[in-house]
């Protein structure tokens, strides 16, 4: 652990990078994921098709391949130059995590009792009113615990960026263990702990909320 304490500023910087990428890509993927979920339940056929195709492609592609695509295939294919580093990490993670957000929100919409939507329809609410005032508020309650689980995985997935020139926690573990060969185990344990500092509170929150929602039902 000595190596970690000696390089506390380096680890702190890496920790902030992991956190920053997680939060930025997390927020963007939430917006994009909710839009995709709306596409997938909308009455407009082409939007449903697009949503389904997008989710199936990006959910079944490894994140590493997505990075590799942005790095090596997007520039010649689309003339799209995503700069290597944090920008690429945020782009890839957003495109990837959004599919999971979409699926969680969609299954949340489906989990709201049919009677709720029927009641809303029968008192004359429109599609957007039904979705916005009746279904989504109820869906979000049951969606929060699985959504937190998606974001736990999201935080851990930021480690893939270590392979693509982002100096985050996993990359710092690699650098410090190269510099301090005698303390490799301590370095990895310490960096693992840094991840747990983020993920375990999220897990506890998810369990708490799940329990509360379950009782309220």
């Amino acid at each position, binding site marked *: 652990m000595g190596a970690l304490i000696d390089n506390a500023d380096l680890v702190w910087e890496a920790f902030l990078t992991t956190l920053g990428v997680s939060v930025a890509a997390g927020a963007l993927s939430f917006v994009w994921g909710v839009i995709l979920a709306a596409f*997938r*339940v909308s*009455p*407009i056929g*082409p*939007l449903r098709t*697009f949503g389904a195709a997008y989710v*199936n492609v990006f*959910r*079944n*592609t*490894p994140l*590493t*391949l997505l990075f*590799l*695509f942005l790095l090596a*295939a997007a520039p*010649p*294919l*689309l*003339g799209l130059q995503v700069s290597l580093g944090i920008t690429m990490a945020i782009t890839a993670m957003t495109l990837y995590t959004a599919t*999971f957000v979409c699926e*969680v929100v969609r*299954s949340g*919409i*489906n989990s709201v009792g049919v009677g709720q*939507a029927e009641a809303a*329809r029968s008192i004359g609410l429109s*599609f957007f009113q*039904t*979705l916005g005032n009746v279904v989504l508020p109820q869906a979000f309650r049951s969606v929060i*615990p*699985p*959504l937190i*689980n*998606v974001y*736990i*995985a*999201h935080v*851990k*997935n930021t*480690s*893939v960026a*270590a*392979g693509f020139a982002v100096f985050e926690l*996993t990359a710092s*573990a*690699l650098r410090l263990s190269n510099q301090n060969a005698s303390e*490799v185990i301590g370095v*990895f344990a310490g*960096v*693992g702990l840094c*991840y*747990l500092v983020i*993920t*375990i509170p999220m*897990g506890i929150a998810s369990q708490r909320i*799940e329990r509360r929602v*379950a009782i309220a*039902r």
Partner: protein
Amino acid sequence: MNSESNVLYDAPGPKAVARDRVFTVVFTLVLLGLVGWVVYTAYGNGIFDDRWSVLVDPSRGQSAQDVWVTSLLIGGVWGTLKPVLIAIPIALVLALGLTILRQSPLAIARIPARVVTEVFRGIPVLLIMLFGVVAVDMDPLWAVVLGLVVYNMAVVAEILRAGIAALPSGQKEAGLSIGLSPLQTMLRIQLPQAIRIMLPALISQIVVLLKDSSLGFIIGYSELLKTAKNNFNFFGEPTTVVFIFVVAVIYIAINMSVSHLATYIESRMRTKSKTVAGLKVGDKPVGPHGGVTAAGIGANTRTGDSTM
């Protein structure tokens, strides 16, 4: 999906039909325009030139068989499948052990099992793989296996725990009341049923393993992505797009088949046998984990962070 979401809006009247038709046309045009733009840009960048011939008639003294069979299939796909196939049985056995320990009446068995599950669920797989390579000096293949095993035993243990929690408590009580020990009840009554209801979630977990094995690319294990990279390094920079495209198609095809298998098993459980192990599928949620209906793909997001 449609039968569910159609509740959200009325059967459209003449005005709404006309409006929907307009929207459908507009969005079809927008999407076609998007596809057209991609194709046009790609064409402008010379993507549709002879670089694709590397797949049928490669240069540099290689044959199509060398590229497809020797390199992509044997080197790449097998390289991706190998650690997954090794990791699945090991992770499953360890997960069963963890699950049994977590249900133990003894705190001294329960608490360490809980800690192990929580810790390894919260650490990136890549970090564990790197640990294998750097700290233990493992062969990259075994480092990949280590990462997959350690993470997935924790996730599968969580899935099984959720499955056990979803069983009616009468199952355990019945087992105990006919004189089985708690361990026997677990092994012969609870676990077999839990595995059965969680089968779709367990199969979807295979997709996660397949995707995570691609992390081997970063730690220097030669799997599908690495093979693609070797290929486009060998055949030259223009073929980059070709090989990334091929590899993406292979991944998506494999993973979608596995997901479909999970969905198929789930739907079969729902329709063919209304009762799974004496338990009504599609009943109201039982227990804190949303019950058997959560046994589907949706259970992934609920019980673990699978499919990510």
